[in-house]
């Protein structure tokens, strides 16, 4: 192992290091959850710094390790930074939820960080086997987190379902990888791409593509492979739901970028139709079902399915162009969307998490009536996140939607243009259920004699301080990406360039 290897692996090692440190500290000093919180938060910030530094900021050259099976390029760095943000906000928000319910925070931190290391591995994989390894490393802690509330029936049930179906789909995905290996004789992403370039698609490879598509669709929760999502999301402790709806989803998109865009990009004409169909189904069904939900957690679960559909629109826009076409606006859309989605979705779940089981609030939408009087800052932040999820400028969500839809509109493929139209219609329909929450918060009166929610006193209680820091981080991200998207956009452009021109 050379020093170049170490540079490439530094972010990954940093995450694992922090995770093991927290584990060790918890072993030596059991029950010191506040210490675990501090270590976890500081540690993940350090990981972010290491990622930024070793990635050379945004335009670092490609560094590889393990004989070229793990490589860090601009896309890896960008995605890693998104994972860091997800982990950080989750860690900040979680103590306020876990503490009062008697759930151990150190274990939560460790499990989450191991999952993040899997996501890092996916983002930097240059080999399909490493990628699969990363996938398993990502999802196994996810199952544990889903069942983190051990004594709660719903949590365990959701975790079991998630685990069974997840394993099922992992097997399907691995089977797909085996097909690819069988037909190309290699697992290196670059070599797969070279071997596939131009060749006609035999029935065997078609089977492989089908398995890969199904497996990936499960991981991003695309319709009709989404069944696990609502149950797992609703059962999990809310900070876990926040993480599950962003972390594994963004990681799964990283996987799609590595597998479909990088290794199978040469035969994109073969799979673009599948993506168009999946995108159309996912957006529409996610939104339709979200419309009828009265539980915020479940509504956000379905809405996250719909957002998967919007991101897939970007993928379809990329795939509809002939192989070798230099336009990457679809990929840029995907990458920007993931960042925007991480902030706004985490923010929305964080508010739900913060309010849940405070006096007079559950995750039922009716209990949010008059929130503006009872907890004004939380209500304003929630409105911000929801408006961003709708896609109203000047928020992150607006530019996210704008970029994927713009990419699709400019496509030469009429099916993709139709998809863009469908996305706009869906966004309009989605406005209904997001804004309904805003109406409840701002325009309905709370029932007489409701006590204040009690999120004040941030300086006295450490957990609340962390919570508000997390909410503020999500809020700032949502606004900054909407008001001043240029720096992120520059990173995104470089990341997309790294994906289609591996050097």
């Amino acid at each position, binding site marked *: 192992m050379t020093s170049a290897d170490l540079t490439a692996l530094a972010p990954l090692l940093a995450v694992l290091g922090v995770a093991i440190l927290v584990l060790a500290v918890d072993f030596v000093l059991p029950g010191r959850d506040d210490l675990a919180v501090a270590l976890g938060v500081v540690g993940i910030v350090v990981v972010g710094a290491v990622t930024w530094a070793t990635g050379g900021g945004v335009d670092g050259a490609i560094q590889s390790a393990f004989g070229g099976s793990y490589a860090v390029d601009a896309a890896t760095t960008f995605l890693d930074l998104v994972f860091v943000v997800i982990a950080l906000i989750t860690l900040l928000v979680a103590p306020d939820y876990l503490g009062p319910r008697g759930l151990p925070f150190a274990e939560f931190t460790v499990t989450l960080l191991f999952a993040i290391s899997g996501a890092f591995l996916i983002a930097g994989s240059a080999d399909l086997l490493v990628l699969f390894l990363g996938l398993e490393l990502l999802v196994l802690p996810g199952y544990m987190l889903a069942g983190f509330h051990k004594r709660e029936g719903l949590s365990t049930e959701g975790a079991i379902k998630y685990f069974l*179906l997840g394993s099922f789909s992992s097997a*399907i995905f691995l089977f797909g990888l085996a097909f690819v290996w069988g037909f190309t004789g290699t697992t290196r992403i670059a070599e797969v791409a070279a071997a596939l370039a131009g060749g006609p698609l035999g029935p065997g490879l078609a089977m492989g593509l089908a398995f890969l598509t199904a497996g990936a669709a499960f991981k991003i929760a695309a319709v009709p492979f989404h069944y696990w999502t609502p149950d797992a999301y609703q059962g999990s402790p809310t900070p876990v739901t926040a993480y599950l709806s962003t972390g594994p989803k963004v990681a799964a998109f990283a996987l799609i970028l590595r597998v479909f865009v990088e290794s199978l990009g040469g035969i994109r004409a073969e799979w673009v139709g*599948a993506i168009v169909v999946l995108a159309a189904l996912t957006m529409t069904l996610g939104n339709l079902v979200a419309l009828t939900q009265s539980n915020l957690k479940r509504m956000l679960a379905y809405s996250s399915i719909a957002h998967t559909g919007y991101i897939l629109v970007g993928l379809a826009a990329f795939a509809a162009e002939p192989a070798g076409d230099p336009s990457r606006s679809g990929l840029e859309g995907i990458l920007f969307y993931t960042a925007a989605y991480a902030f706004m979705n985490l923010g929305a779940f964080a508010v739900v998490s913060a309010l849940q089981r405070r006096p007079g609030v559950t995750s039922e939408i009716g209990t949010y009536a008059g929130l503006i009087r009872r907890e004004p800052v939380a209500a304003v932040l929630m409105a911000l996140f929801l408006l961003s999820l709708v896609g109203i400028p000047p928020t992150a969500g607006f530019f996210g939607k704008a970029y994927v839809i713009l990419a699709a509109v400019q496509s030469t493929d009429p099916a993709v243009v139709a998809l863009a139209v469908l996305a706009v219609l869906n966004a309009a329909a989605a406005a209904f259920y997001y804004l309904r929450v805003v109406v409840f918060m701002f325009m309905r009166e709370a029932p007489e004699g409701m006590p204040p929610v009690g999120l004040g006193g941030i300086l006295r209680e450490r957990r609340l301080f962390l919570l508000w820091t997390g909410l503020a981080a999500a809020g700032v991200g949502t606004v900054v990406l909407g008001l001043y998207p240029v720096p992120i956009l520059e990173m995104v452009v470089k990341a997309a360039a790294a994906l289609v021109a591996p050097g």
Partner: protein
Amino acid sequence: METLVTLLLALPIAGFGATALVGRRLGRQAFWLPVGAIVTAWAVGMVVAFSALTGQPPFTGEHGQGFGFSLYRWIPAGDFTVDLGLYVDNLTAALLIVVCTVGMLVHVYSIGYMEHDPGYWRFFAYLNLFMFSMLLLVLADNFLVLFVAWELVGLCSYLLIGFWYKRRSAALAAKKAFIVNRVGDLGFSLGIFAVWTTVGTLNFQDAFRGLDQKIAAGALEPWMVTGIALLIFTGAVGKSAQFPLHVWLPDAMEGPTPVSALIHAATMVNAGVYMVARANPIFAQAPEAMVVVAGVGIFTAILAASIAFTQNDIKRVLAYSTLSQLGYMFAGLGVGAFTAAIFHLVTHGFFKGLLFLGSGSVIHAVHEEQDMRKMGGLARRIPWTYATMLVGSLAMAGIPPLAGFFSKDEILGSAFRNGFLVVWAVGFVVAGMSAFYMFRMMGLTFWGESRVDPHVAAKIHESPWSMRVPLVLLAAATVVIGALLGWPLEGGTIHAWLDPLFEPARELLGLEHEAFGGLDVALVLASVAMATLGLAGAVRLFGAGAGRFRWPARLADRDALVASVPGARFLYRASVNKWWFDDLYHLLFVVIGGRAGAALRWFDERIVDGSVNGIATVTVAAGRGLRVIQTGRVQNYAMGIALGLVALTLAYLAGLFR
């Protein structure tokens, strides 16, 4: 310089943020932050303005070329990019002087004026937000940022007119201002769209250059340029309250008086004038549009002046006089006297700000009474207010050597020499009318017998120093600024500042610079005579010393005068009823429009909503149906995934996804 200009915007918005966050807790001390921010911003603004006007680096370009920079790229979307760009040239600098100075003085004045208001902090927060918006408006270097600022000042105006929102009339007035402005803004936004589609950029300098090139290349029909100019002018008509959208401004007087001074006299209502001046290269290409501008302007001038004759609310008199003076400015722009129009904007900003603040002081003194019929004889009781307002009124009447005289006469002179004789003639009459109604106001308020409610009369008091100082400073500015900028006539400093900027437009229009000659002397003398006549008439009718002068019998008495002039009764009623515009609009838009609306509502509820609700019902039903899939049984889920996989495989094998 970038830092200074950025600071100029950052200070008021920071003041707004801080006051909005912590103002409530500061109570009576809430003014420190916002007033401090604006005083500092004033100093910064003066440095920026004078660097620009004296050509300090980086303002060294030819032809009044300004200095611009981009804070950041705001909207990067393929071909459509907009920077949050700022631009300072001599025109901006002239506006900065007015906005910063009047803004600063109004802030200071408000410390005293709003002292007993429970919404003290809220008022200062709004004022700071307004200052930010207004500065952004004059500093914008492209149409979109200008438009954003345009809407922001509109929002602040709405918030401040409706500041006493519990009072129904204030809430209604705020709504009226907002809605009437929407009409103008619709046209303005269409104009911006048109600029974008024709030249593909929204940056001022690039867009003007692009339009010139297109016209030179013959790629643009003249009617299109005229259309763009007229659409943009529609926005100005709304914001600057010109006929037929003038109805909102008088009602806007429901807001606190400092607001009327700042927003509805000295700054925001001038935004339309500024914008037309800024877009002068477009207007210079469209002489027909210029004629419309001049016509609308001068018509508003005489219309508003005739209404001001009979109003009894002191602030409404001033509101109509503002309308009338804005009309002058547009007339100036329309006849090609851009410099004179901006000059009038500057002087008017000062003397009208002074008059409004003075009226606030009067209202304060007589315990929130605005009806002049319940005033009278106040000169001795509130001498500071009286003296300063007298200066303002003389300036407004156009008596040399005060501010209004120089700028007004330049507009009238240009109208005459550029061949707009009708504009000149009407403007000439309006000059006399202005002097008359101003001194009617002075007479009713300060001279003669006191008609103040006896309960109040004992308690009349001069305003605190925080209110008097701004009055005195503004009065001093009113005395000197005209001569300072406007002497020698037609060749003063203001011309040195602004003429290079408007030179290309004047050349396009074929307007020559003529030396100041005998004709001009005659014109000036005529208009001064006219103003003196109006003034003297008002003093005779409303003043105190009726006995000293021997008047012809039929002029000796107001009623006799009215009776002696044919048609006077009709004119009087027309004036009192504001030429029935409010009633006309009520009939057109509220009664008839309401009926049409009700019909549409029926159509909407029954037909449109019916079908939409139908779709929604179907959608929700579909959602419910789809929910059934979510059985909760993991076997079903696995089965679903397996089926999905089979379907995918078959589709791939059949080549359906190609």
